[in-house]
């Protein structure tokens, strides 16, 4: 029995953080944001060197064959660094979907390229969770029409699309009839967008007629977002603690005031148990599928609440400087905010958790 990270897993996290500290420090993030760069290719190429896009892809397709937990641990590191790279879709949701429900041909065509990081894949599954503004995609044979909102890893070469029946399709970014429109959000360290389909030829994943596949893709995406929030929250807590030790007011470090100490203690007390929760939920995805949906719903909703508290409280501990663009603390603040809303907010997730246990009347 061992419920904790292996040395390899800890090393993986450290190597990602170390790489990003060098390749994507605050200045690089700012440039990415301020210049509205679609992709930070320099940062991405190092991620490829580390094997990140190949993490959960099977060895036979040129991947490493890790489990979802490893991907979640990487997501935690990305969140910790507010990394301006795609990940949730291109490295997790899409390869998992293709491996699970794609034909041999689809697997051979896409997985090696995804593993190499040559191809970046976005995912548009928002409407499989809930629909706003009459968005949604419907299929007519292998032809898609409609609109998909909040595609993740939007600056991509290929997209995974869910239609109204939760079937999954692959669509080339330059497919005829597809219009792409970026959506500006508060979180500018990652790219989001809208996809408009007018009779677009799509490549259906044959194994996706069971809607459970789409739901599992969403589960995977959710735990990745939750892990990202864990990493970003931990970083915001660390920054608050460090700042409080340096910042002097009234002739003493503000971290020696009980009010500030207790704010930091409350952040730690709320955040620390989330770590084990994230491990368990991500591990359950592969190892205990019967527990996965419930634990993942709870992990994402709970981390969303804790993250919101920490984003606010860390900014408060920083005082005025935390409110400036210059310090850049807000990149983490907004990243946590974005993770909260994407792929189901807390209220939605709690209702799904209740459903999963049969606590909601049909």
């Amino acid at each position, binding site marked *: 029995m061992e419920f904790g990270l292996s040395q390899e897993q800890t090393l993986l996290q450290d190597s990602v953080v170390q790489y990003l500290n060098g390749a994507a420090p605050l200045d690089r993030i700012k440039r990415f944001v301020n210049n509205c760069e679609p992709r930070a290719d320099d940062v991405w190429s190092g991620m490829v060197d580390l094997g990140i896009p190949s993490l959960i892809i099977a060895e036979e397709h040129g991947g490493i064959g890790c489990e979802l937990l490893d991907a979640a641990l990487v997501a935690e590191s990305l969140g910790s660094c507010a990394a301006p790279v795609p990940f949730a879709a291109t490295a997790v949701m899409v390869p998992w979907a293709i491996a699970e429900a794609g034909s041999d041909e689809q697997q051979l065509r896409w997985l090696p390229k995804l593993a190499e990081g040559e191809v970046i894949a976005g995912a548009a599954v*928002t409407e499989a969770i*809930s*629909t*706003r*503004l009459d968005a949604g995609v419907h299929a007519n044979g292998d032809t898609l029409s409609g609109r998909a*909102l*909040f595609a993740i890893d939007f600056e991509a070469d290929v997209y995974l699309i869910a239609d109204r029946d939760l079937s999954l399709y692959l669509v080339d970014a330059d497919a005829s009839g597809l219009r792409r*429109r970026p*959506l*500006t*959000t*508060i*979180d500018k360290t990652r790219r*989001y967008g*809208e996809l408009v389909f007018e009779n677009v030829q799509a490549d259906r994943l044959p194994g996706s007629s069971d809607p459970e596949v789409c739901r599992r893709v969403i589960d995977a995406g959710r735990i990745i977002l939750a892990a990202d929030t864990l990493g970003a929250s931990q970083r915001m807590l660390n920054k608050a603690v460090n700042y409080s030790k340096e910042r*002097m*007011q*009234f*002739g*003493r470090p*503000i971290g020696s*005031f009980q*009010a*500030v100490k207790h704010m930091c203690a409350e952040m730690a007390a709320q955040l620390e148990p989330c770590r084990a929760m994230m491990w368990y939920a991500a591990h359950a995805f592969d190892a205990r599928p019967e527990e996965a949906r419930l634990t993942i719903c709870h992990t994402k909703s709970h981390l969303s609440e804790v993250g*919101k508290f920490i984003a*606010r409280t860390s*900014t*408060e501990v920083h*005082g*005025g*400087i*935390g*409110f*400036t*663009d*210059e310090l850049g*603390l*807000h990149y983490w*603040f*907004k990243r946590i*905010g*974005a993770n*909260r*809303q*994407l792929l189901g*907010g*807390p*209220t*939605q997730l709690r209702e799904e958790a209740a459903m999963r246990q049969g606590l909601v009347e049909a």
Partner: protein
Amino acid sequence: MDLSYGSRYDDFREEVRSFIETHRHLAAPDWDVSDRTKLQEWQQLLIEQGYVGRTIPKQYGGYGAEPDILEARIIADEFARAGITQGFSGQGIAYLMPALLAMGTDEQKERFIPPTLRAEMLWCEGYSEPNAGSDLASLKTSAVLDGDEWVVNGQKIWTSTAESADWMFCLVRTEPDAPRHKGISFLLFSMKSPGIEVVPLKTMSGTHQFNEVFFKDVRVPKDQIVGQRGDGWKVANLVLEHEREDLGDPNFTQQRLNFLIDLMKTETVDGRRLIDIPVYRDRLMQFQAEVMALRFNDLRLLSAKLHNKNATLASMVMKLQGCEVRHELEGFAIDVLGEHGLLYEDAPYVRNDGSWQANYMFNLGLIIGGGTAQIQKNIISERGLAMPREPRPAS
């Protein structure tokens, strides 16, 4: 209990309303100082009408009316109701003028109040410094007397409107050897003085609402000090009191709540109106109750002022509670909007111009600024509840 204002005031309200009806096309928004002429014309009209500078003596260019709290409230209410600005109300008018009236010399009043009132002299406030935030009294910007002039060196931060202001009122340390609070003086000087550099300070919400201001040997005539040397802290506190009352105004929060209710009645998820989702509705009602408590508290404060009654604690808590509710309310709106709550700036489908996100951040700034929530709680416990101060640390 008498919630009516009485017929004299009802008449006055009618008068204000009809003025607004007739003149609203002339109104200049107070946040746009680019068209100074329009601003000043509108200001002038309001001064003549007695809706700006109502209680400022005629000799200083005001309307010279007796202070009347209900008249003031009626004017404010009616302009707010009409959604137009009640003249220009920059920091000079709102904060400096009361301080000048209380502690300025006759000369200073004559020189500064009339153009300030007419929006010919726009002011910014030089208080916070990078190392003097919560601990404002530790400010280091220095002013040294050299002949007939103060020579100012140092830096201010969080200076809103510094880029457009003509003048600054500024806290500087003039008596470096005196105890902290007694070494500070209150200076007035032109922003065109040589040696001043204004650098925009971008905030997390992406806007430039603040600046840093750097002083290098800025020379200020000796008589542009309000009060005596070392009186600065006293003058500043006159200003700060007015400022804190402005933060967390529940009537503004009520407006945002109303917007949100409208939004929740029209916006849908899975074909269901947001207001029909019981968990959201329950939380919305919780906000409505909290805002209601603050609005009635505000009414109580109005009445207390009117009747010279003591309501210190009720007034002290307004900033803390008001800013907290405002921040939380905007965050809740983001939640109910789901992914759409993330949209910002020029995004298609963005709701209410992205104001939910912008205010969620800006209101966090309010919790921090003008005395952080932690400082507010210190004040409430010490001055409101007479709890002991923290013991002075052994050095």
